[in-house]
C-alpha cells in the first residue's frame, strides 16, 4: 500500500524500538526483530502518531539534502508501506 501524505504513522500495538542504551537499535515485533540504522531508524523514530507522512518526508529531505528529494520521498513511502504490510505500522487519519 502507499501511505496517505496527511496520515499519522504510528507503531502498531506490540511493536516498539528497543531502549536507546541497547545496541544495535532494533524494531521489536511479534516473532520478528528488525535491525535499524541510519535513515531507517530516523524514519521509525518519527512514527510516533505526531508526525504526518509529509512531515517525515520533509524532515528527511533536509537531513539528506544531497540526495534527490523525489528519491528520498519515494524511499520513505516504500519503507512505510513495507512496515505496514508487516503489521508494524498503523496510519491515523487526522
Amino acid at each position, binding site marked *: 500500500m502507499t501511505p496517505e501524505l496527511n496520515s499519522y504513522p504510528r507503531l502498531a500495538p*506490540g511493536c516498539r524500538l528497543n531502549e536507546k542504551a541497547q545496541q544495535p537499535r532494533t524494531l521489536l515485533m*511479534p516473532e520478528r526483530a528488525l535491525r535499524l540504522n541510519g535513515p531507517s531508524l530516523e524514519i521509525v523514530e518519527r512514527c510516533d502518531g505526531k508526525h504526518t507522512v509529509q512531515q517525515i518526508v520533509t524532515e528527511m529531505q533536509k537531513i539528506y539534502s544531497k540526495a534527490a528529494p523525489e528519491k528520498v520521498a519515494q524511499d520513505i513511502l516504500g519503507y512505510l508501506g513495507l512496515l505496514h504490510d508487516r*503489521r508494524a505500522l498503523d496510519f491515523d487519519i487526522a
Partner: protein
Amino acid sequence: MNSGIPNPLALIAELTHRCPLHCVYCSNPLELQARSNELSTEEWSRVFQEAANSGVLQADFTGGEPLARPDLIELVRAARAAGLYVSLITSGLPLDEARLGTLIEAGLDHLQLSFQAAREELANEICGTAAHAQKLRVLDWLKRHRVAVTLNFVIHRRNIDQIEEMLALAESSCATRAEFANVQYYGWAFANREHLLPTREQLTRSVEFLKRAEERLRGKIRVEFVVPDYYAKFPKACMGGWGRKLILVTPSGEALPCHAAKVIPGLRFENVREHPLREIWENSEAFQKFRGEEWMQEPCKSCDRREQDFGGCRCQAFLLAGDAAATDPVCSLAPLRSKVDAILAQIILPPAAETPVKPSWIHRPNPA
C-alpha cells in the same frame, strides 16, 4: 564476546509444565516436570538478565500454561526490566480481564492465544477440557487493550477442514497475526500421530486457501503457515539451526537447544541454577554437539542446502532413523525417506458420509 558463536536471539521460557489443557499434540516432553522443581521468581529474573546480557532480544513465555504461575506479572516486569520483548503464549486459562489488564500494564508486548479448532465441540475434544468458550471471552477482552495479538491454530487431520472458519475468527478479532501451524511430530504428537497426520489432499486444499488469504489480508493480518514436514521435500531449519538462535529453559532450569532435545540419548544438559546462561550457550556439550557442520553425515555433509536447513531436525532424525546425526528422514535426499513415505501411505480417512469417529486419543496429563 568473540567466541565466534552467534548470540542467541530468543529465550523460550517454559515457566511451568502445569496446564489446564491436555492437548493431544502438546510439545512438552512425555516426562513432565513437577511444580516443586520449578525455578523461583528470583531465579527466572536472573535468567532474563543473563539472557539480555547475552544478546537475547525476545522472551517467549510458554509452558505448560504460563498463567498457572501466580507470579506471572512479576516475571513480565522482570523480563521487561532486563530489556526483553515479552510474548505470552497462552491458552487463555485461567484468566479474567483484570489480570489481563495488569499483565499488559506490567509490559506484556504480545499475546499469542491458541485455539484448538473453530468449533467448540472439536476444540474441547482436542484439549480434553471445556476451554473454547473462555478463549472467545479473552479474544473479546483483547479488543479493549493495547497489545499485539496472534491467534495460533495447531492444524491436523481433525481440524484442517475448519480452516476457513478459523480464519474468519481471526478476521473478526483484533489479531494482527494468525498462525496456522501444522502439528510437528514429537512427544505427545508422536504418540497420537496416526490420528493427526492430514492427507495430502487436505493439505493441498488448505495451502491453496491460505495463500489466497495471505494475499487478500496483506496489511491487515499477517497469515503464517507451517506445513507438516513429513510432506515437505526438504526438512525445516529446526530452531533456526541447533544452538544458533534459540535457547530454551525448562521449568526446572535445564537449558536445551530445542523443545524435544531430551529424547536424544546421551546428551547432558546443564542447569541455569548451576551455570551462567552464556557459558551454557557457548560451551556446554549439548549446545556444541550439533552446532556447525562437523557432525554431519552424507548426504548433508556435501549438500548445497546444508547452510539453509542444517540437515533438518536432530530429534526427528533420532525418532525416525534411530540416529540423531543422520539426515532428517523427511528430506527427499535422505537414505531413510522411504520410512516417512510408508507412514504417509498408511493414512486413511473414514468415508465422508460416515460420522467421524472420535479417535482414541492419548491426552497429555498434568505433572505433580
